[in-house]
Each structure stands twice: as structure tokens, then as C-alpha cells.
């Protein structure tokens, strides 16, 4: 099927097979491998991307559903080489270890901060609760989001 959509601020026309998931389309057709497939069932959040600005698990969507929509992946979050505030605070607070959940975690946080620029600690915890991390224990991730919220303001 032919689809037309915005991918990391670029308008794209693309032919995608109707049963291909969005995460596979991004990874296989566009080499945007920042979205990881950790479970294939929407349980781990590693494939999170921004779909019209909102975080979604791209393993639960089909590629064709991108038609007419705006998609941002982790590769499109930084402006060229200039990192987004969240990317900077994830580094400065040490909010990452193996890095496999990190792109999804950052994009979920981005979605949260777009909607709610001054979230409470509990709101951050709730927003991130669909993104599993096995390494960090989450503490620094929450601190990174708090710090980024401050820096954005």
C-alpha cells in the first residue's frame, strides 16, 4: 500500500505491505533502528515513538496507519547534532545503562513534557510506567525528566 506521512519532519511517500508493523517499517524500510522491539506486544515500551506528538508503542501499529500522520523517532529528536534537552539530562543524570530502553523512555518523556511541562514526580512515574528498564531502577530516569522539564521552562 502507498502511504504519505511526515517522518522526522520530512514528507515521505512510501510503499508498505499491509501487514507490516510500524516498528518493522521504521527499522527495516528506513533504517531507523532507534525504536527497539523488546516484546512485540506493547508491554515493554522499547519501540515507543511519537505519533502526532503522542508516545505510542510502534509494535502495536501497522505501518499503513502512519498514512497522513506525523511521526518522530529518536533519530529525529535532536536538531542535527544538537541534542534535545531530555537527551542531555539523560546523560548528565546517568539515566541510562545498557541503552536499549533509552530511546523509548526519552520519547515517552518528551510526550509527557509536551502535554504537561511541569509534571509532579508521581505524574512522571505514571507516564513512564509503560516503559520497562531492567538496569537503572528508574531513579535517575525520573530525575532526568524533572531536570529536563526545568531546563525547557
Amino acid at each position, binding site marked *: 500500500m502507498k502511504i504519505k506521512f511526515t517522518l522526522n519532519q520530512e514528507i515521505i511517500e512510501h510503499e508498505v505491505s499491509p501487514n507490516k508493523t510500524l516498528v518493522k517499517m521504521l527499522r527495516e524500510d528506513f533504517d531507523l533502528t532507534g525504536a527497539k522491539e523488546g*516484546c512485540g506486544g506493547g508491554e515493554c515500551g522499547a519501540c515507543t515513538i511519537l505519533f502526532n506528538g503522542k508516545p505510542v508503542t510502534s509494535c502495536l501499529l501497522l505501518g499503513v496507519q502512519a498514512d497522513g500522520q506525523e511521526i518522530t523517532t529518536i533519530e529525529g529528536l535532536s536538531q542535527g547534532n544538537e541534542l534535545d534537552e531530555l537527551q542531555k539530562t539523560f546523560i548528565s543524570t*546517568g539515566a541510562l545503562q*545498557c*541503552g536499549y530502553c533509552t530511546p523509548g523512555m526519552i520519547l515517552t518523556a518528551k510526550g509527557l513534557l509536551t502535554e504537561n511541562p511541569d509534571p509532579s514526580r508521581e505524574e512522571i512515574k505514571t507516564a513512564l510506567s509503560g516503559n*520497562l528498564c531492567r538496569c*537503572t531502577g*528508574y531513579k*535517575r530516569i525520573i530525575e532526568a525528566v524533572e531536570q529536563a522539564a526545568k531546563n525547557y521552562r
Partner: protein
Amino acid sequence: MKYVGQSIERVDGIKKVTGDLKYVDDMKLPRMLYAGVKRSPHAHAKILKIDTSLAEKYPGVKAVVTGKDFPKKAGLYLTDKTFFAVDKTRFTGEAVAAVAADTEDIAKEAAELIEVEYEVLPSIHDAREAIKDGAPLIHPDLGDYRIVPIFKPVPGTNISEHFKLRKGNVEEAFKKAHRIFEKEFYVPHIQHTPIENHVAIAQYDRDKNLTVWASCQSPYAVRAALSDAFDVPLHKLRVISPAVGGGFGAKAGTTLEGIIIPLAMKVGNRPIKLTYSREDEFVSSYVRQALHSKFKTAVDKNGKLLAVENEFIWDGGAFTEYGVNIAKSAGFAAVGPYDVENIHCDSYAVYTNNPVGGPYRGFGMAEIHFGIEQNMDHIAREMGMDPIELRRMNAQKPGGTTATGAKVDAACGLEETLEAVVKEIDYHTPSEQPSDPNKVRAKGIACGMKAPSMPNNAGSSAVVRINEDGSAFLSVSAQDLGQGSDTALTQIAAEGLQIPVEKITIKTGDTDHTPYEWQTVASRITYSAGNAIIKACDDVKTQLVNLASQKLEVPKEELILDDEHVVWEKDFTKKVPIRELSLGLQLEDGSGVHGPIIGRGSFVPEGVVNFDPETGLSEKPVVFWTYGAYGVEIEVDKQTGNIKVLKATTCFDVGKAINPELVKAQCEGAVVQGLGSAIFEEIIMKDGKFQNPNFTDYKIPTSGDMPEMTIHIAENPQYDGPYGARGMAEPAMIPAAPSIVNAFYNATGIAMNKLPLTPERVVNALKEHNK
């Protein structure tokens, strides 16, 4: 120190926050094929016939293999494993055959077309049954398997390792005891669940070079195992581990690599990729072995532990090539961090038809401490003693002895770590109770210890190359699984070279290009690779100083490295930049001396000796012990059975924190992972079949489960550690579960001898208790 001891930012941060880092599943190689696997639906069954004809004819299929094609056994400590079932299957989910095809979908569809005829055999799923005389044998040929000689399998049984510890005179001690306590505990199978599932790519060219890209912790150990299994010489076998998305032990050995190599050998220089789905990961990669433990403890009237008699029965699953070492490690640490004169311990690795047991963060130790540390609280209560005082009295202290009779090192900081958590959690002040009468709060503590369990001669090496601009490359094969070794090791090199961290690039994970490393396991990398790096830096320094001595005309003994220069310590203005010496020295007449600067360092721990084969005793069986303690405060909802960990504090004696924030981050991760093992995680099996292979039914902690955490660090230097450092990332998980279970007792008066404390189990226990 300028670089060591500083909490610098991770060196791998930018490529991880941008998605720029390529993990193995992100790799797409030219003409790549994909593998699909046919797995056994039976826990124990004879394979009568495999018909691959339909799969072979399926469009897009390029190769099909079965166990008959590569029947050679492999394994790290015990060669009991084949990558495909050959004559029979030994666990549900074992690979029976595989195909390589143009796409992942075709590979999966074709694999399902393989028809296998089985004769179902009686299966065993409880290690206590499997250990009995007359139990059906899962490995009848156990006596013929190759094994590292320190292990003792019992051929003709399902026992693949029987470790015996015999210290002092237990019988006499029990006779003299004031009180004797007996307890049994059970820790179920759980799983590591790194967010990145296992994945590998294999390519075999026509010149017989085999290249394997794998998400693996130990490229050299994987290379050795694959070389042995597939008869490929080491100089023709390259293992590359570009990035690891979490390991925790799951990626220490070989798993799916052995499935794709036979396929790769059939398709003529085309790469083949296999990526496990989450369900594959749960069912067919390693699990943490279940443990049945028994403790009988003799105590004198003051609370001194006189003797411990214990038994550990490990459910090793279908293969115990790694599991034998877990049983051994538990055996030589039999009584945890306490000084006990008389010990009688039997630790058994036992085959069952359950999933394959493997190393999981702090292997053996988290499982035995669940019993040891509850036992200490139990004894304290029964003796009318403060549990902290009981621990203090019995703690291993400098000059005391460990379970194997080794002298406790002067650097043992167990008491210091215990004091730190008792103070932080304010253990002796009862919790403030919430207004909701259904909720009750209480505190708990636990101690723990762990040593790297590895061959005595497990070695590391490092190469340092100085570039023409004075920057450097550091090459090692230590793998950063997230723990931060790339950063800590770079800091060690920076300190050794006096070149800033940002001018050093670390290269890892390629057996063709980075030097030998035994394995990234056992919390040994900072210690072992760190020591190799110091030696490589010393080698660089010797070369630089020799050249600078000629150039500056001062004695080389008086030259030091400082701020990217070789400097005369008597007059700091007399110096030469390292950059100028990077290609050697050029003399006034234009001639050259020495050439490019390359440093090499090799390290193996000194003086680690074998156990006595009969008694298990040894004066130095391990390189070091890391000690530490946990304090937690929990809230139990008596109506729902939910447990919330409100606060957690840890203190571990790390010798020297190379990067304190990275040390703290390891502890925080360990608290939450340990919390999962205490209250959520359990593999539920029915006749060996995994019932919950997904994150909905196998719940791991989320951000909502995170407690408030305060992490302390103790630093009693390790005498032979790099700048005094010893390992800590695994030890940090060990006391987590028992501290929570001890707090649960303090909240409810109920001792739980089984993990995890799920809401259902809690509610049932409360009902039973209130009867």
C-alpha cells in the same frame, strides 16, 4: 587522583540517547538470511523421526538443519549440551531443527512445516525428585562427558555436581549447642529479562572463516565454545559483540549462536540472523535456577553460631554446563557473611526437564542468602536478641575465617556497611503507621557477600596505543552491558596515562582486534581488566620515560607523567608532551629512536588455589569477597496483599569507587531488580511448560514500583585491586529479597519461606495466620 574517583559522565551516553548505537538486531548485512527454529513441545521425549522435506521445498528456504548434522557436545564447565536436540529432547522449547530463508516470516513458516515424531518419556520437574535413586535419567551418559576437573558429577544419577564443604566438627558442635534451629526455603525460577532479547548473526565464508556477531558478554568464551563445538580453529573464528542491551548473566555463555552456525555453514558466505522474540527469550534462553535449601544451625547461649549443616538442591534444568559452577559457588559460601567454625554443606546441581539454568546476577548468592538472612532474623527472635547484634557478633571480620577456612582480609567492611544501613533506615525506631488500618509498615535488614566465581587463572589483557596527537586508544574485550565498564576502564587508563578521558577512545568486543578477556561476568571486570590496563599504562610510561630521559637529559627514575606530559619531578618546567613521543624520539641529527608507543598489559590474579577435593576447604579460593547490607521499609496492604517498598538503602564495600555515581547506579538498579525477585517474579511451569512467557504475566518492576533510595559506599581498599577497587554490581542485588521478607515478618509476624511474595500468597498467608 585526577580521574579515578570522579563521577564523570558515561563515555557511551551520546550514542545511546540518540539511537546511534547499533545493536546486533539493528544490523542489516548484504544478502542476509533469517533463521526460524522448530522447538520441542515435550519436556522429555525421544526423537523418532524428523521429516524436513516440506520445509526444504518451501519457496525462499535456503537451508535446513537438524541435530543429526552437528551432534557434538559443548559447554563451559561441563560439555553436556548440544545446540539442537539430537536423540531426545530434554526441555519444552528445546531446538530440534532450524531453517534459513530469505525473510523472517518465510523462515518461521517453513520451520513449522518440519514434522517431528516423538515418543514421550517420563519427565521430572522437581529437583528433589530428580535427585532420588531410581529417578529417570536425563543424561544417562553423564559419566562420559568432559568436565573441568574441579567438579564432581555422580554418573548414573541426575547429579551433575556435588560440592561438599566439611569444616571443623559439626557433630560435636551440635552436641554442645544451646539451641538448634531448622529451616527450609524455596526460591523459584526467575529470568534476567534484559530488554534486548538474544540475537546473533553468523557468516561462514568459502575460506572457512566464521564470523559471529552476537549480543554477548564474553566474546572470547563464546569463541572458545563455538570453536570446540563446530571444529573451527580460533584464528578462523571471529566473535564481535558490538553492543549489549542488558545481560545480567543471560548473555554470558552461548545460546542461539549454535543454531545459526550450522545453517551458515550450508549457505555459502551469506549472513544469517536469528533474533529471539520475548517468548523465545523466556522459554529457550537461560533462567535462574530454582533452589531448595535446608539449614540446621547450632547456636550457643550468647547467640554465637557454632555450626551450620545445610543442603542446597539446585534445579539445573536440562543442561548444567554453567549450572555446576553455581552449585559449587553456593557451596563454598555456605553460611554467607558469617564466621562459623563448623560447617557441613552439600550443594547439588541436579538435572530436571525444566528450562536451562544459567548464571544470573550474583549467581548462587542471592538464592542462598534468602535463607541465610531470614534465618538470622529467626534465630535472633528465638534467642530474644537484636538481629543487628546477632549479625555483628557473627560477622566475618578481619582476622576471622570464611566458610572455606580462608583468613578474612583486613579490608572486610561488613560491619561498617551494616552500621551504615541501620543508621540510614533508622532500624531501631519503629515505622510510623499509616492512618489506613489495613496497611502496616515495617523495616527489615539483610547482609550479603559474594566473590567472583571463576577459574583461578581467569585472565585479562589490554593494549594502549598512543596516537600522533597525544590521544590514545584503549583496547580490551571487557563488555559494557550497561554497568559502565567503558567509562570506568577509560578512567583507569586516564589515571595511568595522565591523559584526559575525552582523549581516550575505548575499543571492545572483537576477538580479531581486541585482546583476550576471559569473561564479563562475576563482577570481575573493573578488578581484572582494570589491573591489565594499569599494566598496559605502566608499559607505555616506561617507553615514554626512556625516551624523555634521553631528550631532557635527566634520569628516567625522576620522570613522571602529568597533564599529558612527561615531567621531571624536580623541575616541572622541564617536560615533553606525550604527543611528541608518540612515534618515538627524533634526535637532533634527524635519526629516530624506538618508534610508535604501544603498551600491553596482562593480568591474572595471584595465589588463588583449588579447593581440597574432599573437604572443599581452601586458603584462598577466590580473589576477593565483597560485603554489604540492605535496609528497607515496606508497607503491606493486608486486604489486597500488595507490598510496596517505600524506602531502600544499601551500603557495599567496593574497595574504591572508580566512578561513585556509576557505583550508586548499580546499587539502584540492583534494588529494583531485587525487589522484582522478592515480590513479583516467578516462572510458572506446568509439567515444565512455561505458562507466563510475557511481561503481562511475568511482571517486572516499573517506575511506579521504585522506592525512595539512598545509596552509601564503603571503601576499604582491595590490596590487589586497581586503585583499591573490587567488584560490586552483582553483590548489590544479593540482600534485596531477604531484607524485604524480613520487613514483611516485622510487619505481619509471618515468615515466608518461599518467593515471591505475590498478593495472592500474602493474602493466603495472612488468612492462615489469623485462623
